[in-house]
């Protein structure tokens, strides 16, 4: 068994004879900083995987509620965590060679992952809080590997000093640029001096939108849920006996609800601030660079050549105050929702301006035929009608009039929803780009370059055929994989697909 540092001459992936004309420059395997052992020990990063194995052991040994057992257990787990962290640090090495990145790891079974430089889609440098205390960063290398699972596409080098992280990122991005097929890339070292053009900068006033955004509300709600579960599991002796407030008093309930709403809103604002603190999006040469975060500083780089368009999404609450978010659609990007985010939260005008920079304006959206409105209404109302008819029977047989009332209320409320869903629908095809929009709870408009389309799918159910409409999906190798124009007039399908794809191949669809 030889340590990875002891074999500088052999470098997997570099085959003798096929290398570049310069003498073989197999780089030595680099190590991460030993300080990362401390970080991983503290966070139980490796030891976490051992927890399922520990539970049966603990069950066999048995718990008596003595303090010594707890202390011994804590010490044992920490020691185990230290050992696991040290082992995995010792067995980890990485090398950024002229043609590929190679990461070697694994305790017993050695795994060597080689990612060719031209497969690298982006490099992300992040700094969690604990890493920052130790002056370390974590580098994620994103590589496209077709349809392999998300986590398979990623190489993570965890725990290198700040300067080494920056060097690694720049060298990887520069090499990727000089790889064949990327003629317009900057030469090594130039990346530093390239002028920056600022695309967006977070205004702290935008944080006020956060309480109306679902995803920022979910986090505090989940935290509250976890807290309650935790309190439930604590032994009764540890929970102080408090007399619950008198719930029959209306005033108390109202105050409690208002207080909870205010706390929730505050938590959403704080959460949004933590994630998006000092967000900045700049274009530097051929890349878009986004930096953000208060505790964990995240640095994401996207290649402009691979951007095929973007989505502008607005939730129900966001539409109310005119807020929106923008994501880029990048080919071959894993975890696109997080990484492609170009404007996490901001006013609609700002979001639209940013979207225009990704893809030209395809023009005003055209609305869909009246049949689409009928279909949305029927769909929205059907659940309510079902409940109403069930309620009718229940009232007649059991006297449960409230079922009927609930059914009627649901039916009446779902009418505006159906109309809203119809109003969201739209499509447009411009000279170089096209756009589709749908959704009500979260309305999403996708604007795509014509070259993004890798196929068309047209679907028509029996009822759609009767009503003369069809759903058209533009298949795209980015984002969610397909963007649909729902309930287009059947006669418009061939025209739209022809106008929205590059080349003449879509003419095959024309009747």
């Amino acid at each position, binding site marked *: 068994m030889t340590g990875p540092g002891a074999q500088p001459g052999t470098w997997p992936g570099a085959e003798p004879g096929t290398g570049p004309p310069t003498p073989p420059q197999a780089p030595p395997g680099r190590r991460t900083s030993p300080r990362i052992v401390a970080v991983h020990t503290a966070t139980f990063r490796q030891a976490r995987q051992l927890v399922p194995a520990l539970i049966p052991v603990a069950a066999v040994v048995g718990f008596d509620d003595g303090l010594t057992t707890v202390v011994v257990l804590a010490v044992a787990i920490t020691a185990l965590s230290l050992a696991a962290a040290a082992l995995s640090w010792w067995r980890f090495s990485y090398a950024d060679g002229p043609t590929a990145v190679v990461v070697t790891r694994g305790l017993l079974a050695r795994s060597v992952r080689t990612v060719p430089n031209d497969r690298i889609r982006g490099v992300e440098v992040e700094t969690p809080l604990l890493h920052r205390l130790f002056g370390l960063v974590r580098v994620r290398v994103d590589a496209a590997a077709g349809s392999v699972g998300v986590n398979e596409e990623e190489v993570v080098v965890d725990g290198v000093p700040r300067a080494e992280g920056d060097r690694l990122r720049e060298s990887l991005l520069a090499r990727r640029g000089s790889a064949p097929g990327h003629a317009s890339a900057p030469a090594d070292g130039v990346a530093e001096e390239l002028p920056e053009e600022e695309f967006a900068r977070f205004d702290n006033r935008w944080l006020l939108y956060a309480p109306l955004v679902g995803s920022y509300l979910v986090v505090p709600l989940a935290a509250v849920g976890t807290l309650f579960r935790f309190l439930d599991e604590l032994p009764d002796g540890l929970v102080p006996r408090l007399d619950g407030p008198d719930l029959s008093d209306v005033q108390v309930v109202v105050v409690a609800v208002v207080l909870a709403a205010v706390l929730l809103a505050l938590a959403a604002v704080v959460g949004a601030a933590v994630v998006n603190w000092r967000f900045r999006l700049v274009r530097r040469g051929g890349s878009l660079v986004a930096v953000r975060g208060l505790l964990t500083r995240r640095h994401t780089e996207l290649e402009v050549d691979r951007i095929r368009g973007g989505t502008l999404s607005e939730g129900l609450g966001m539409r109310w105050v005119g807020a929106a978010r923008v994501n880029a659609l990048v080919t071959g990007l894993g975890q696109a929702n997080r990484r492609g985010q170009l404007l996490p939260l901001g006013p609609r005008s700002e979001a639209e301006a940013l979207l225009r920079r990704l893809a030209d304006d395809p023009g005003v959206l055209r609305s869909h035929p009246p049949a689409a409105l009928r279909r949305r209404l029927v769909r929205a109302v059907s659940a309510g009608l079902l409940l109403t008819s069930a309620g009718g029977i229940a009232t007649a047989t059991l006297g449960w009039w409230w079922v009927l009332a609930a059914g009627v209320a649901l039916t009446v409320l779902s009418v505006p929803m159906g109309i809203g869903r119809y109003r969201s629908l739209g499509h447009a095809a411009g000279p170089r780009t096209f756009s589709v929009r749908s959704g009500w709870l979260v309305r999403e408009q996708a604007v795509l370059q014509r070259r993004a389309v890798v196929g068309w*799918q047209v679907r028509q159910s*029996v009822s759609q055929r009767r009503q003369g409409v*069809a759903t058209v999906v533009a298949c795209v190798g980015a984002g969610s994989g397909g963007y649909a124009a729902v309930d287009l007039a059947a006669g418009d399908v061939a025209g739209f697909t022809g106008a929205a794809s590059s080349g*003449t191949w879509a003419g095959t*669809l024309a009747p």
Partner: protein
Amino acid sequence: MSTDAAAPVRDPAWSLSRSAIGLWITEGVLGTLLYGALVAAFVLFVPVGGPVPVLRWVLPALVAVYAVVAIGIRPWFRHRVHRWEVTAEAVYTLTGWLTRTWTLVPVSRIQTVDVTRGVLQQLFGLATVAVLTASSQGTVRVWHLEADVAARVADDLARRAELVRDEAT
């Protein structure tokens, strides 16, 4: 079927071989046998005074309806709907029987071409050609071609995709 005026796009030119009908009928028979066995087990082993007595009559009736549809109607319906075509620029299919799906993929964006032969397909000498692109939703499957046709189509598409491929994303 007769309301062609409502068809949103042109139908592909070629229909499938009639062996496909035999294969779909076989699938229908196998499905009916499976459901029939399940329902028979239910009727035999659940005591007469069971929770929902109506089920003893409804379930066999449902299986009978399924048998008529899956063996007597659906195979012919599908054969009339399913069509495919390979043009100079694209692969084009129409599938489904109630809900119809037209899929078009240009040759220049093809990433891989697969030919698969299931157990039943081998009995009937058929194969499926799957054309994959960079999009998870942009996959074209031409079901139940004769095996030699499928092999020829796959070879031809793979060769042409190699020639005209631009970025394929």
